[in-house]
């Protein structure tokens, strides 16, 4: 779409939306949010970009096929379940790690977070693929 307002706004908004989606992804374990909704937000950012600049630029920006992103997500999600095997626990057992960062806030790294990252990537990949296909089918 050839509009100066949209182009200018999109440049800022897309990066803001993507950052916000990661924030939503991370807070999701105990508060509203998580991989699914985060993925939806990220996909909406990419879709906004493709509306403003065209799907070929959006594809260029993604660098890999959306389905590969989804596949990587599925792989991470499955991997998060397998990691517990290193400690001899059953599939999908949650493992938690609290790194000492020397700051007051507590940062939690866990296999549920890895699973959520997987969900995030699946949603981003799948929705982006569908949206870009639909956009190109319209042209």
């Amino acid at each position, binding site marked *: 779409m050839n509009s100066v307002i949209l182009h200018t706004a999109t440049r800022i908004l897309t990066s803001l939306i993507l950052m916000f989606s990661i924030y939503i992804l991370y807070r999701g374990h105990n508060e509203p949010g998580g991989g699914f909704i985060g993925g939806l937000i990220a996909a909406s950012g990419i879709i906004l970009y493709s509306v403003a600049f065209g799907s070929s630029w959006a594809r260029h920006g993604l660098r890999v*096929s959306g389905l590969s992103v*989804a*596949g990587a997500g599925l792989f991470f999600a*499955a991997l998060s379940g397998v990691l517990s095997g290193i400690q001899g*626990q059953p*599939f999908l*057992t949650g493992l938690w790690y609290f790194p000492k960062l020397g700051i007051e806030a507590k940062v939690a790294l866990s296999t549920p977070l890895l699973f959520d990252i997987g969900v995030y990537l699946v949603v981003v990949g799948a929705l982006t693929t569908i949206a870009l296909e639909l956009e190109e089918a319209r042209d």
Partner: protein
Amino acid sequence: MIAWLLFWPVLIPILTAALCLIFWTRPDVQRTLSLLGTAVLAAGILALFREVWTGGIVSVQAGDWPAPFGITFVADTLSVTMAALTALIGLGVAVYALGDIGHVRESNGFHPLFQALLAGVGGAFMTGDIFNMYVWFEVMVIASFGLITLGGEREQIDGGVKYVLLNLIATTLLLMAIGLLYGATGTLNLADLAQVVPGHPDQGLLTAIAALFLLAFAMKAAVFPLYFWLPASYHTPAAAISAVFAALLTKVGVYALIRVFSLVFTPTHEFTYAVLLVAGIATMLVGVLGAIAQDDVRRVLSFNLVSGIGFILIGVGLGTALGLAGALYYTVHHIIVMSALFMVAGVAQRLAGAPGLNDLGGLYLKHPWIALLFFFVAMSLAGVPPLSGFWPKVILVKAALATDAYIVAAAALVTGLLTLYSMAKVWALAFWKAQPDHVVAAAGPGILETGEMSRGEQRLTLLPVAVLALATLLIGLYAQPLLTLSERAADELINHQPYISTVLGGEGA
């Protein structure tokens, strides 16, 4: 390690599907991954089978959540046998697909969808949680809808819509039944349900819920009168896809039926058993009569598939250990034979360039080996000794006579005879008779030399068929091991106390 093998049927296909998606633009890599994945899957499940065979039932709690609350995976003789067959058929179809599936379907995602289907089937077999089972059913429906429409021909969309609509209705009914059962009992774990349901005060409500389960699973298993989606759709996709559907999808419905109606709704619910017997007889007869009336070879086979489900149902419906053993034996035989038949029919149709019995013919003259393979497997389906179809029919008829169910025995024998007729008709018309003049006139006399298949493709597609044909011969000649297996699985289903104590006894990792 054994705890991990329980998740093998789900984990390996999902990882393979993920890797296939990552290599989306490289069908050649996907092909290797698919073969490798199914081989690893088969190896792992065979190891699990050995463990269960020597050590008895094992269970594991996903995420280490204790039994009635978390999701349990259980491997008893029945579930591990079904999972092993899934993996072996998966491997066979993965090889067959090399020569059958073609570039277009491959680049549109055959491999990841196929692996997702295997994950759904494997999960449904291994899970010990009724809601989790529903989730795997959904995974199967989504993957199979993708597979059935792969290629995007008009006929496929038509078949696919019928397939997915009726399957979605079935899964919705299943979800409703699960919701009601959870509301009535407060638990979803099958072993826990087996303890709660018999002593529940409101048995009337539970019978109604059981009927809802029966309806949902019967639709999935293509039982009369809910079978019509199957012959309307199974002949439309590529042969590799219809072979895996024919081998596994209806069997998951049958498995779920057997599992739920032996563990949760036990034979005290006599009403459901009477329904099973009547539905079984009707399914057998309607299926085989439909098969005789059809022209497209794969539609003939689809109706025979439905008819076979009827055999399994009467075994379950008789409610005796012998009947159940016969049903399980028949299930194993049917999985092997049906996938082989769909595979070889696919080759025949591609060689002749036509799907119908009217246009086929002359294959025996040009491709005697293919014709012989079909004959062999078809006779096994019809129950000709010494092939594998003979023994389960003997067991089922014997079980029917032992309970004085003479009508059931008669129906089984009549169906067997009609199956023989239907298979002989396909053999005579598609393979034995001379090539019809109108086909020769239209396509030239050379059409049957290779059709649209190269020699290499023919070898790749016929290899799994030959292995499966050998399997049906071996099972037929050397029947005792499988009979022992079926009897043990049936015994575990009827005396299910060990299953319950394994799941609820807190034996985690």
